[in-house]
């Protein structure tokens, strides 16, 4: 009776071509191949590469310790595959099935090799299952990790995108707020607005909330905080882009916006701002 793992190594070394054919067949017939996302040629190429790497790894290394250095090439390959699948929009189980679907062709071959030796077959199947499971779990883990990375990156990008402070005119800044204002965003909005006030020496800041879908008491409070902070820096704030529904909500909620100049549209706010800066600071405008 051959040593444990010997038969698996043999199959991987000698029957690679048939194994590959069976495996690709199993993947294409199953649900794991998303023909809309990936071509069969690409799948075949990936499968071939993985089988070759697996053979190299089992040849020289342990069958149970996939964290070892023998398996590093195979691990890297799997990580690359799951990352690319995460970006292509595969589901986690579809990605993991790439590895798990190798079981069936392998087991068929093992059965052929062992024939009537039930004990030897059971042992070898157990060993193979364990190995494939580890590889599959590793794939799933990498998949989830890369998905998380994508989400984090998108969050960061959204944060950067959503808080631009633009200079409309000498001494006039505009801050178009898009999306809901939560505390974290208010902090970012406030900091970038105040910094821009320092940089440009603006006297008026227009906060445009056309892109804010809903205003509740919390959002209103955040807006008022921003206005108060800007005032401390010596800049007046105008809130513009208040839609009819939002005006109704604000009144129903009992939010007091009477301290702040509010305008229906950015254009109105801008014309007020122009008038005010000219009336108030003619010398600065003239000097610049």
């Amino acid at each position, binding site marked *: 009776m051959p040593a444990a793992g010997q038969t698996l190594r043999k199959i991987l070394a000698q029957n690679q071509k048939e194994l590959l054919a069976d495996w690709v067949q199993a993947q294409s017939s199953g649900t794991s191949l998303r023909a809309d996302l990936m071509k069969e040629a690409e799948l075949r190429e990936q499968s071939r590469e993985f089988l070759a790497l697996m053979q190299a790894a089992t040849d020289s290394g342990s069958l149970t310790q996939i964290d070892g250095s023998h398996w590093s090439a195979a691990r890297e390959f799997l990580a690359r595959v799951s990352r690319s699948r995460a970006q292509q929009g595969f589901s986690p189980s579809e990605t993991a099935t790439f590895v798990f679907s190798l079981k069936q062709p392998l087991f068929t071959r093992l059965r052929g090799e062992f024939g009537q030796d039930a004990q030897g077959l059971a042992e070898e199947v157990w060993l193979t299952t364990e190995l494939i499971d580890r590889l599959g779990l590793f794939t799933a883990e990498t998949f989830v990790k890369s998905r998380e990375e994508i989400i984090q990156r998108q969050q960061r990008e959204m944060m950067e995108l959503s808080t631009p402070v633009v200079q409309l005119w000498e001494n006039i800044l505009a801050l178009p707020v898009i999306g809901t204002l939560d505390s974290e965003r208010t*902090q970012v909005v*406030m*900091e970038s607005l*105040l*910094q821009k*006030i*320092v940089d440009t*020496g603006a*006297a008026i800041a227009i906060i445009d909330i056309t892109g804010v879908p809903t205003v509740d008491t919390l959002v209103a409070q955040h807006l008022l*905080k921003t206005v*108060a*902070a*800007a*005032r*401390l*820096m*010596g*800049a007046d704030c105008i809130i513009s882009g208040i839609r009819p529904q939002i005006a109704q909500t604000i009144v129903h909620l009992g939010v007091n916006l009477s301290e702040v100049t509010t305008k229906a549209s950015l254009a109105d706010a801008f014309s007020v701002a122009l008038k005010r800066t000219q009336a*108030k*600071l003619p*010398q600065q405008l003239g000097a610049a």
Partner: protein
Amino acid sequence: MEKIPILKMGRFLLVTVQVDMHDQLALQLQDDLTARIVAARARGVLIDISSLEVVDSFIGRMISNIAAMAKVLDAETVVVGIQPAVAITLVELGLSLEGVRTALNVDRGMALLQERLADEQR
């Protein structure tokens, strides 16, 4: 003992806070400034806190108080040079310095005071 200097510029007083304001210093400033407003018959006070990087609720309240006291003595107070971080802290503390005029820098603050004086003389 350290003291915050108060400079006279025409009808205005200029206070530049250049050290970290601790409580005793703030109280001292309150005494000195009110005395000086009366002595100099000042019409405006300009407080520059651009080098102040840390504020607490006490200092915030002192600034409010000083402004209110100056108002009683018929002198307008303008606080200038509040740093972004300080502004955010004050707002988070719930001290938005109602009743105190603010400006970005000394230039703007001076312009505000002069404008007010000109309005009155008209």
